[in-house]
């Protein structure tokens, strides 16, 4: 297509109005010695050729049945999500700085904030963050601000990618990060009690843990609060269909990745991160927040609020540098939750758990495979193998199955362990095939 609509006659008229002889003259403020030394790019193409090119690239990926998560999960997405989020009044709008012209986005984000609060049991959510990992880092920063302390305890059972993001975010700040090595894939309660003191801004945990273990952190929350710190929990939103909510446990700040709520895997993004908290922390919250108000006639309406926390007003004193968030992905999350509804969301969670328990039993029956997750699980669990998990996973990828995430790269001495994920999309047949292939590989050579 032609991306610019100007005809030669129009260009001449416009130049005459401006009072220059050519478009290039408009670039005269740029000194000659600063001009581009190269701009070696391919010639343009039609949309049809472009789509062929992308299809060709896609064909170089292979179809794999994923029993892996790592923070991203292969879930069903109702058709309504793509169709409604595909309304271009939503996706071609900008951040709703002009509220009268943006009530659609603003009301949707208010409804999204409400949905997140109802999942987490908190009373404040922002309008989204980038992803689950950066949300965890922002939560840590928020806790550091709220407590004016400089020490953070981090459960080693948190997703290692998210911990890496946290370290990246905190690397240049005067903050001490204490990582607690997990025991049985869960928070080491003794080490935690040892390290907890009045310098701690927060303890960061994850539920279920990276290893798949589900826990109740109510007791831990009391301990943290006893020292004046905050409990931050990264949660898997689909699991909140069943699991005790962060709010019920006394968690102060909950975060998570919203990808599993109606966002495609899309090789890692875009999706969204969410963050919620008790209302007393609202002024320390990063990012945009939508609030309810009224117009001149007293009609209900929505605006971006508490903007004095944000970079465009406060510059370097802002609670965060975030500007663009992941609004459209948050909208997808809201549509997803509305389409499933109160009961459907519970059924989704139950399906995940049923499939995972079925897979756990199937794998436990294989000679040499041991289930390491002793705690109850949601849709993930950890197994140990009689061989290096790396080798086994690599072999099974050749057979079209991503059997699990090997733990060797992330935990010392865990080279023969892997985490297996089973979402509602995995059929009994696929799970059986995983078990059969594993058994053949381990026991029938």
């Amino acid at each position, binding site marked *: 297509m032609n*991306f610019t609509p100007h005809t030669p006659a129009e260009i001449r008229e416009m130049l005459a109005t401006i009072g*220059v002889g050519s478009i290039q003259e*408009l670039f005269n403020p*740029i000194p000659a*010695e600063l*001009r*581009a030394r190269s*701009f070696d790019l391919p010639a343009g*193409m039609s949309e049809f050729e*472009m789509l062929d090119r*992308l299809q060709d690239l896609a064909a*170089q*990926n292979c179809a794999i049945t994923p029993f892996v998560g790592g923070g991203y999960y292969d879930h069903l997405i109702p058709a*309504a999500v793509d169709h409604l989020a595909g309304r*271009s*009044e*939503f*996706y071609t709008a900008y*951040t709703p*700085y*002009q509220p*009268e*012209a*943006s*009530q*659609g986005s603003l009301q949707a984000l208010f*409804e999204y904030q*409400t949905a997140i*609060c*109802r999942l987490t049991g908190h009373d404040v959510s922002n309008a989204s963050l*980038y992803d689950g*990992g950066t949300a965890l880092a922002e939560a840590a920063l928020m806790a550091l601000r709220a407590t004016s302390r400089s020490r953070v305890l981090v459960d080693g059972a948190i997703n290692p*990618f998210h911990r890496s*993001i946290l370290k990246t*975010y905190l*690397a240049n700040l005067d903050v001490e990060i204490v990582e607690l090595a997990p025991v049985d894939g869960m928070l080491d309660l003794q080490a935690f009690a040892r390290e907890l003191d009045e310098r701690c801004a927060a303890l960061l945990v994850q539920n279920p843990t990276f290893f798949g273990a589900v826990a109740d952190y109510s007791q831990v929350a009391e301990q943290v609060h006893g020292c004046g710190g905050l409990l931050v929990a990264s949660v898997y939103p689909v699991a909140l269909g*069943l699991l005790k909510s962060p709010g019920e446990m006394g968690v102060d700040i909950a975060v998570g990745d919203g990808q599993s709520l109606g966002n495609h*895997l*899309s090789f890692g*993004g875009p999706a*969204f991160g969410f963050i919620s908290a008790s209302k007393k922390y609202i002024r320390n919250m990063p990012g945009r927040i939508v609030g309810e*108000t009224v117009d*001149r*006639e007293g009609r209900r*309406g929505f*605006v971006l609020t508490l903007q004095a926390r944000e970079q*465009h007003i406060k510059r*370097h004193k802002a609670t965060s*540098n975030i*500007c663009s*968030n992941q609004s459209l992905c948050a909208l997808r999350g809201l549509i997803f939750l*509305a389409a*499933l509804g109160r009961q459907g*969301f519970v059924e989704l969670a139950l*399906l995940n758990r*049923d499939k995972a328990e*079925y897979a756990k039993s199937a794998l436990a029956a294989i000679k040499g495979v041991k289930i390491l997750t002793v705690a*109850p699980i949601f849709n993930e669990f950890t197994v140990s193998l009689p061989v290096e998990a790396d080798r086994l996973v690599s072999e099974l990828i050749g057979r079209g199955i*991503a059997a699990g995430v090997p733990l060797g790269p992330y935990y010392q001495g865990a080279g023969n362990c892997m985490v297996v994920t089973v979402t*509602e999309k995995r059929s009994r047949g696929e799970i059986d095939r995983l078990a059969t292939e594993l058994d053949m590989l381990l026991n029938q050579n």
Partner: protein
Amino acid sequence: MQLIYEKSVPARRAVRMPSSDVPAAAMLPRELLRSEPADLPELSELDVVRHFTQLSRRNIGVDTTFYPLGSCTMKYNAKSLEDGARISAPFHPMIALLPGGESCAQGSLAMLHHMGELLAEITGMDEVTCQPLAGAHGEMTGIMLIAAYHRAKGNKKKYVIVPDSSHGTNPASAAMVGYEIVTIPTAPYGDMDLDAFRAALNDEVAAVMMTCPNTLGLFNPHIKEICDLAHSVDAMVYYDGANLNAILGQVRPGDVGFDVVHVNLHKTFGTPHGAGGPGSGPVGVKKALVPFLPMPRVIKRNDASFGVETGNPQSIGRTANFFGNFGVMAKAYAYILMLGREGLIDASEKAVLNANYVMARLKDLYEVPYDQTCMHECVFSAARQMQHDVHAIDIAKFLIDKGYHPPTVYFPLIVKEAIMIEPTETESKETLDEFIAVMREAAETAETDPAALKLAPLTTPVSRLDETKAAREQNVCFT
């Protein structure tokens, strides 16, 4: 309009989950379960569809309306980009990080690598990471790279310099990386005050962050001198790519001397803004910073296959879950493929032509605080209209009634009553002429009937909203 929660009817259902093909698992222990299901709305699918369709009609976007929001580059988002991105929907990012998994993600990795190469050529940098998830995230990543560079060299650095015309994200991003901010005023000619800059520059300056053209839409002719001065104290120079749409093919930040650059794919490279995101903020760097790039890093191996590097100890680590907003990158990649070299050059030329045309036709009625040839956007002040107690916001609301999304108002902060217009290249002369006519009508109305402007907007679902009440009551969640 009712909230979706107010439309909820107990026991109504929309989408059904598949029936289970495995036995039901035992219930989890009670202490692990929530006391009751999350109170999500209960609706039919048609209820859901109508609700969000109605909401969409209370919004305007580039597809419905001219949207000259300065500094945001609201160009047309080609429909084929959406189709292009959909192709990558089913790919799980974890596969590429598994042992043996790279071979199953060659297409995705190839696209990321090629995208990096294209952006490196466009910006004149040596290598690009596509991981940052938005422009501000790219800024923070870029400053982290600079911090890592200084740490590795043993440099003791404390400050980051930003001009007062910068986007708020610049100082906010540098502050997130622990730097103190030194703000340099803008000189009467519209660029950063060079003398003040020289005076502020010392051995403890880690970086200088520049937007070029700046937020006044002006290209700083001294930009190379600024880079050279910064380099003389081993400070790195950061290019905020928010305004890159002005200079594609004309200037490459890397050639000028910039060390780090971020680009906003949702601005310059035609991907939609999504009512506030997702964006994507790839960061390009010069060789000295390559060792510190975030992990995972997509590489091309000697056998021409693509791989993922995760183990570099000098890296700043991860800044995001996986490889960045891949779906957004797919759209920007599609955009670059379709426009090609000539199309990108043409885009900047027409963006600059459109902005200067709007400026030329409005400057008799609106004050231009820095009256020079502009680049892709022009900044007016409503100072003259203020004599009639008409503010930039009143003009903005009047424009809404006339069917436009208003320009950016009150930014940059250094211009009183700023009205910042960025038409972008995809708008036709007729569209600009109609918009200009309405802007002229606003200026006239400011003189003849200022009270009328204060009433606007009247055509929207709500009139002006009480922002003070919102901030005071903090009602951010429906109960």
